[in-house]
């Protein structure tokens, strides 16, 4: 295992520190490495061992520097000043001198400084912007007291792999009673309802809370009280807690609000409290009103008679793992005791933050890592630029060495110059981040559902990160630039000043760095290629319906007027007929679930002729209530039978429609139309078979879906699906006017096109593609500049050799080939290393890819091809310049 680099770095230390501290400690590290190496058999363990050694060696070096500083400081305060030594204020004085020198240099070479600052600004800006997102979403405390102890309890169906948050009320009651890990266990859910008062009814977002939820969330009302157990039992007087914002606006800051009632939907509720300002649950979602959730004290006989979400607060000192084990054990008890409901169902606990952040954590961290790559590439490039600039400053450095400056002094000077450049780059980077961070936040999928995305800003923590990134960047590229200084003695330096070239070591280091830069660029290119291909696959997916030209509108009938099913059905039918008359409207339908919005509602499917064995839980299939017009509006193909129509409403026998997957899975070799399925105690006839659709998301495999007639299962609120003849959004005013003609008090809101919803379903993939693509382009450009720089200096260094070759009869094409071959070797090395690293990195991406394997050959080949073309183009210009060398002049000048 080669570790020459650490010895070389160790030479930067003063001789005494290197000899007394660094060398023996490094020897011990080598001893430990040799001991562990005998046990590291697999490739992975050897890689880990290398990483461990590298990190330990760097730590050792840093510790030596720390001890050296302490030693010097203590000598400064204890030892009398020696006339032979420089005054001990030298650190500060020297730093001030170096700083002044660096600032002068910064001004003296504005073009060089600008290129370095801009390169760094790209890297630091990208990192700062992404860190602002990561900090807002993953690191900032949740807006609840001790929010890290809040957990959600969910369950996963091992047969379908679907996770659900809604818990059957029986399970909720027993979970609450049997758990040992939580100090409070509460239930909640969400709802929308019209707030009826003077004027237009107002649609409000509400939450139902069990009384324990206030303790779980640490919620103290601004006025009044929270719910008591007596508020949450059947028959209790209806009460409500209103949000502070609703109280201040709609309710006019009424000082006597606690003695007033409000009409919420069909129920009049007494206001018993006002929530504190800014309270939302879940965070980000509006919570205008809170009403008590009615949960029985003991589990009902029909355990799935209702559902609720569960949230709990961990007991102090109890880790999540113990809570998970606790919940899993209860889950097993349920499976044993209530197999018909719980067979194959596993309860689990996850932190509230994880539940809210969902799948966003991984892409965020992956993008932050990609931005880190860009910064690393930028650092290598800047390091190479500084290394190249040291050519012009060799005379100065040689003179300093000759006059007695140690290597450490020169390194300190280079570090200070780097620090000035990096801080300038960091300052511009912060400006870049200030502009881009909010845009990035808005590009995130479903930004309103992710906590913290509405508060992305450049706060002190983000600025500290930016400062840290700048300092680390300065260290990295200054160390690169220091490579040229490490082996030079004063005598060597004074000799080389006549050659105005890099030393061999510095040149090799520069080539190696460019190869590393190319490797990093290849990794990003592979990532970008994979996400591009994944996105292309995703948007090419046939969702099973036609989203173009469909408008979706949330629709609500006025409260209290349509209290029974026939009245609602008649109203809806009249509405559909009126809308269908509009010239802008082609077809009108309605359904309970909007496709591609992540909905996982299911229903059990049992065939009466194949009854389940005792204790067996029936398979679950997707649940949807839809009108016949829904299938026509979305152009879901009818394979057999018929769609729902007026025959299916009222007292007609129950009917259902099944999707292709149900037919194939549960009626193999049979025609399901005309067959029956079990619906509770009765049965329903299958009247039609339709095509499968992607219900939850585009990347979700088509599921088996069971459709119930909307005519029999409609409530006061539904979603309208309207296929229009032109632009769907332009048709909305006419639609609203037509609806108001039929029912002036109807609520119409959230008009969106189905295409927009489909696009949102691919938003995560699109964001990853855009950002990785952007990073890859920056990396490619920087790698191109790196190759160009190294080849340009190589050509300058070899001018005499090239002139001699031309004089001896080499053709200009030979010279071009000679130079480009050198570039090819560097690029080839980088390409191979980058491909290997890219394949490893792609595995981390695999969960974000759709329809593309991490080793996707087109993505790998494209990355290689793009990089090769860039390397060839970047090396062609120096090669052409080399071929134009005038042999006579070159030889004469030598």
């Amino acid at each position, binding site marked *: 295992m080669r570790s020459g680099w650490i010895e070389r770095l160790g030479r930067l230390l003063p001789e005494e520190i290197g000899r007394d501290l660094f060398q023996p400690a490094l020897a011990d590290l080598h*001893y430990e490495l*040799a001991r562990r190496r005998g046990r590291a058999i697999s490739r992975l363990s050897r890689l880990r061992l290398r990483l461990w050694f590298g990190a330990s060696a760097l730590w050792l070096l840093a510790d030596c520097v720390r001890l050296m500083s302490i030693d010097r400081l203590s000598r400064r305060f204890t030892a009398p000043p020696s006339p032979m030594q420089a005054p001990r204020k030298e650190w500060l004085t020297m730093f001030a001198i170096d700083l002044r020198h660096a600032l002068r240099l910064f001004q003296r070479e504005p073009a060089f400084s600008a290129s370095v600052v801009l390169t760094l600004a790209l890297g630091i800006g990208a990192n700062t912007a992404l860190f602002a997102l990561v900090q807002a979403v993953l690191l900032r405390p949740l807006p609840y007291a001790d929010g890290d102890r809040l957990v959600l309890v969910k369950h996963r169906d091992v047969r379908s792999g679907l996770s659900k948050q809604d818990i059957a009320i029986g399970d909720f009651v027993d979970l609450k009673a049997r758990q040992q890990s939580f100090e409070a266990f509460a239930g909640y859910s969400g709802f929308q309802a019209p707030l009826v008062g003077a004027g237009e009814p107002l649609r409000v977002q509400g939450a139902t809370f069990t009384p324990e939820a206030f303790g779980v969330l640490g919620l103290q009302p601004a006025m009044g009280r929270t719910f008591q157990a007596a508020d949450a039992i059947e028959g209790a007087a209806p009460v409500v807690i209103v949000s502070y914002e609703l109280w201040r606006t709609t309710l006019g800051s009424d000082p006597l609000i606690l003695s007033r009632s409000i009409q919420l939907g069909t129920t009049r509720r007494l206001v018993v409290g006002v929530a504190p300002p800014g309270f939302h649950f879940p965070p980000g979602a509006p919570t205008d009103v809170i009403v008590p959730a009615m949960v029985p004290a003991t589990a009902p006989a029909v355990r799935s008679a209702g559902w609720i979400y569960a949230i709990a607060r961990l007991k102090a000192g109890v880790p999540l793992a113990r809570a998970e084990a606790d919940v899993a054990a209860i889950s097993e008890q349920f499976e044993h005791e209530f197999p018909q409901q719980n067979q194959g169902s596993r309860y689990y606990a996850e932190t509230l933050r994880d539940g809210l952040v969902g799948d966003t954590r991984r892409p965020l961290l992956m993008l932050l890592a990609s931005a880190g790559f860009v910064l690393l590439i930028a650092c290598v490039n800047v390091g190479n630029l500084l290394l190249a600039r040291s050519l012009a400053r060799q005379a100065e450095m040689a003179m300093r060495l000759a006059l007695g400056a140690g290597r450490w002094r020169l390194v300190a000077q280079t570090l200070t110059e780097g620090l000035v450049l990096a801080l300038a780059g960091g300052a511009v980077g912060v400006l870049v981040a200030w502009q881009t961070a909010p845009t990035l936040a808005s590009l995130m999928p479903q930004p309103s559902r992710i906590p913290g995305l509405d508060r992305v800003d450049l706060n002190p923590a983000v600025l500290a990160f930016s400062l840290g990134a700048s300092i680390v960047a300065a260290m990295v590229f200054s160390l690169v630039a220091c490579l040229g200084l490490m082996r030079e003695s004063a005598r060597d330096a004074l000799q080389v000043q006549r050659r105005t070239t890099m030393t061999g070591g510095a040149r090799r280091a520069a080539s190696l760095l460019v190869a590393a830069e190319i490797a990093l660029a290849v990794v990003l290119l592979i990532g970008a290629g994979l996400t591009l291909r994944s996105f292309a696959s995703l948007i090419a997916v046939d969702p099973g319906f036609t989203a173009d030209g469909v408008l979706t509108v949330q629709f609500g009938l006025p409260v209290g007027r349509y209290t029974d099913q026939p009245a609602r059905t008649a109203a809806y039918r009249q509405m559909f007929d009126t809308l269908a008359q509009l010239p802008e409207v082609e077809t009108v339908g309605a359904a309970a679930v909007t496709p591609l919005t992540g909905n996982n509602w299911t229903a059990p499917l049992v065939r009466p002729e194949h009854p389940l064995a005792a204790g067996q839980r029936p398979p679950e299939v997707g649940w949807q209530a839809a009108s016949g017009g829904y299938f026509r509006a979305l152009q879901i193909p009818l394979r057999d039978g018929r769609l729902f129509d007026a025959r299916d409403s009222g007292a007609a026998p129950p009917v259902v429609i099944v999707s292709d997957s149900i037919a194939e899975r549960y009626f193999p070799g049979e025609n399901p139309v005309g067959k029956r399925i079990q619906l509770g105690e009765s049965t329903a006839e299958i009247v039609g078979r339709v095509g499968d659709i992607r219900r939850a998301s585009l990347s979700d495999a088509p599921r088996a879906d069971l459709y119930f007639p909307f005519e029999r299962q409609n409530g006061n609120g539904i979603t309208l699906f309207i296929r229009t003849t032109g632009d769907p959004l332009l048709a909305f005013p006419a639609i609203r006017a037509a609806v108001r003609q039929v029912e002036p008090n109807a609520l119409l809101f959230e008009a969106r096109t189905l295409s927009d919803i489909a696009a949102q379903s691919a938003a995560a993939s699109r964001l990853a593609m855009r950002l990785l693509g952007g990073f890859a382009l920056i990396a490619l450009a920087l790698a191109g500049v790196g190759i160009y720089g190294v080849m340009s200096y190589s050509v300058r260094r070899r001018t005499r050799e090239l002139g001699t070759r031309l004089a001896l009869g080499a053709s200009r094409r030979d010279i071009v080939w000679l130079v480009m071959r050198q570039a090819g070797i560097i690029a080839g090395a980088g390409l191979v290393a980058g491909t290997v690293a890219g394949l490893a990195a792609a595995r981390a991406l695999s969960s974000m890819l759709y329809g593309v394997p991490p080793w996707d050959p087109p993505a790998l080949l494209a990355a290689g091809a793009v990089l090769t073309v860039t390397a060839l183009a970047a090396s062609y210009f120096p090669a052409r310049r080399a071929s134009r060398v005038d042999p006579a002049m070159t030889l004469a000048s030598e």
Partner: protein
Amino acid sequence: MPKRALPALTHLQYLVLGVLRSEEQPGRVLRQALASYGVRRSGPAFYQLMARMERARLVEGWYEQVTVGDQAVTERRYRITRDGTRQWSEAHAFYEELARLPARVRWSDA
């Protein structure tokens, strides 16, 4: 009362010399010995201590090649010097003397 003097050794030096009294040891073993008394020092910090002890001629250090598995590596070994042995003995005598003192000592005639 005869004039007494505190030992010149620090606790750490006393501990290191105590370990080295019986036989020479590699630095990493000495570090482990210190760690067993709860003194956890980084490699460089430990060798800084040893370098100071070398400069004070309490110990002698040298590199020696050893084989670990199939690899030859070097390690720094230390042995106690005559000065080191003397100072350790003085310190030891001091502590022993202290230990022999009665529980209540009259330090003053006042």
